[in-house]
């Protein structure tokens, strides 16, 4: 199309377009955002696929994530090392999954990871308690928290083991009508 940008090769942009839900313009814009978080570390020239990662503290200060109670978990779920350091690929991947066009199944996979605080592949009672506390800023009483956690497990747990496996979670999310409209970030 006659773009004079030198950040990515055309082949890289095509690959990004196929692998994410973004268009070329959006990917270039994302690179701009990634770069402006740490201009000294992030190179402008990505044609050689440099191995640069940004630490979690920079990412969670982005305006899109700043007010989100789950910001640390989101970044950790998409990072390769599980610690929250994002390379540009992880960065783009994160916003692609959280964009409007990602299908429900894909979002459910990552939502499960985000809400699984102790990363044991189950959402157990302690995970639920942590989620609730983050949502309500610890304003509920202990009794109310226990009640709500019990209700959630009662509603979603199908195999009766007292915690939610991914199958339970996905089944429950397919019936949650607000999931698609709330689980998305605009960038």
């Amino acid at each position, binding site marked *: 199309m006659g773009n004079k940008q030198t950040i990515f090769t055309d082949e890289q942009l095509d690959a990004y*377009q196929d692998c994410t839900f973004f268009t070329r313009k959006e990917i270039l814009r994302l690179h701009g955002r990634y770069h402006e978080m740490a201009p000294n570390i992030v190179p402008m020239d990505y044609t050689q696929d440099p191995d640069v990662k940004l630490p979690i503290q920079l990412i969670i200060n982005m305006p899109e994530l700043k007010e989100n109670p789950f910001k640390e978990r989101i970044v950790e779920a998409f990072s390769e090392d599980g610690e929250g350091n994002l390379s540009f690929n992880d960065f783009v991947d994160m916003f692609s999954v959280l964009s409007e066009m990602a299908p429900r199944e*894909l979002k459910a996979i990552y939502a*499960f990871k985000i809400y699984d605080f102790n990363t044991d592949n189950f959402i157990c009672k302690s995970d639920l308690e942590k989620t609730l506390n983050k949502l309500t800023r610890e304003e509920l009483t202990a009794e109310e928290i226990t009640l709500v956690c019990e209700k959630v497990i009662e509603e979603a747990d199908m195999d009766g083991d007292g915690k939610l496996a991914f199958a339970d979670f996905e089944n429950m999310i397919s019936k*949650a009508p607000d999931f698609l409209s709330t689980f998305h970030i605009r960038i």
Partner: protein
Amino acid sequence: EVFFPDADHTSPPVTFLQELPSYRSVLRQRGAGGTQDRRQNTRGSVRPPVGQTRNLAEGTGVENEALVRSIREYALNIPEKRRLRAVQKANVKYLSRWDQWKQNRNRSWKKFLDEIKELSSYLELWRHDIRSIEGKFGTGVQSYFSFLRFLVLLNFIIFILMFSFITLPSTVSTYGFFNSSYIKVLPKNIEPKCTIYTIKGTKGLVYFYSYIIDLLSGTGFLEMTSLFYGHYAIDMVQFSGIKYNVPLAYLLTTLVYLSLSLIWIVKRSVEGFKQSLIRKEDQFQSYCNKIFAGWDFCITDVNASWLKHSSLQYELKTDLEEERLKQKIAGRRTEEKLRIYCLRIFVNIIVLAVLSGFFYSIYCATKYSQENICTVSLRNNTCDGNLLVQYLPSIVITLVNFIAPLFFSNLIRFEEYSPAFEIRFTLMRCVFVRLANIGVLLFSLGTQILTCADKCKACGYNHELYPCWESRVGQEMYKLMIFDFIIIFAETVFVHFPRKLLVTYCSWKVIKWCGLQEFAIPENVLEIVYGQTICWIGAFYSPLLPAIATIKYFIVFYIKKISLMHTCRPSSRPFRASSSNFFFLVVLLIGLVLAFIPLGLSMTHINSSKACGPFINFNRIWDVVPHTIDGFPVALRKVLYGIASEAFAVPFFMVTCLIMFYFIALAGAHKRVIVQLREQLIMESRDKLFLIRKLTEAQTHS
């Protein structure tokens, strides 16, 4: 490591569990090897494990197409996806020419669609405004503004339709552009009494102030313009050989805009309906929905996030409260139940009585207003020009719309429903009142037009007071619309702004307790649906009314946005985006159905006015259709008569019923299958746990 559900078992983890296939697929996530595919792989049969990507080569062309299309939907990180993509590209040479060409065509088509989407996003109206509202106030409020934008577009399309098919031919032919000529409607076989039509107040000197009155009430100079039905007195327009039948076009355009609105609304509401079908009935009680889908990830503003936290807290507390209430209700004795039912019946009777009172007051106001707008006297017809009398029905309707919700929300407390049901039921009642008000107004107008002390025999309607009754109905709708707009504007400027100033600068406790105006979404939605219903009804009698509606909603968007940002606080009662979209469209659909009724009745049962408009030579407006069909060739006429006859209609109706019955049965069967599968899943995992326990016992004993 998998732990047992009962906590008192502290047995060591069993190793054979890690050989379970379901566990292996989850293991990849842990990144034990570091470079392995770290994302959970649950795409099922379509996505093979990483090591088997070479097997894609054996797939058929069609299968590869499906894979290429959904590569972005895999839960892999980007380097993995790129590898997969490279593999697929390499596999392309295993496909036949035809499949390759198909793949390339699909890919370029997709790219083309993406480009179009990107371009069209620039054309989207108010894109930036709605995004910033979403960021600050969440998706519930944003859905209201999206709805408003949808109405602006709908009204604009209706205006384009009406203008290009009705107004444009008339105007063009009147001035003789494009070699067009027109044939005016000549009354044939009509009593001369019915054709007298003088527009008041246009003869002689006209004061400036009466200009303003005319502008606000649609009389005088406005009545003569193409704004109202009465102006279109053209029978046929000829454009160098093509004959354009204006009455037929007028009627057909009306039907087209009604059907277009219906189809567009149904199309938009299908999304929401699909979601509500799979939802459980107890939507207000869904804790999972609140916890896992409750936080709006779009929120970027500090105040909005604080508000969201408090509203989530409020919701959870309300739900727990409802739980307690439910248990209390379940424990009620029969005498209490009887008492409550009696109370509810009593309250409903009161509600009905009060509603009848409201409707009667609207009827009286309309009657008074119509009788006193223009006094018929023997010398000359003088028109009062008193704005208060002109706008009396609008004022009464606005008052009723204001009082009724307050009344309902206070009364429903006595009926002791659960809080969630209370909100819904009050809302339903308010919707009913708002839309029924318009119906009552039209009904009282209709009785005025049709009742006359044996003056009606000549023309079929009261030709002395209403020589051109369609224009008069159009004027009433026009007045309603103008008044609605004035009220929205005045409410924001004269009520919300002073309230905000008071709350900010005055330190009295009473005022602080009152607080800012809440931006209640349901009430705002009812307001604009009410306006839209008026537009739909009025567009037939006043073809340029949709243009006024477009401009009105355009300005209302900015008024509401300013009001939201500066003078209101968002509602503490949360309004979910998913249910709200569907709710808005359902209410709009009810308004549209309500608009069908008066239009249909007036077209088929009331004689068209013989003094103005294009339907002078027809008994009723609808008669133009049979008249046109009579002009068709014989074969076509037979077919059309056949379709309209009972011999076709009854079997068609029965077939439609059968198809509907089939789909209902299918949906029921699917629901049963889902329940069965769920039970099966539960049983399977119980079996698994049992077997695991047995195995570990066997292991520990051996």
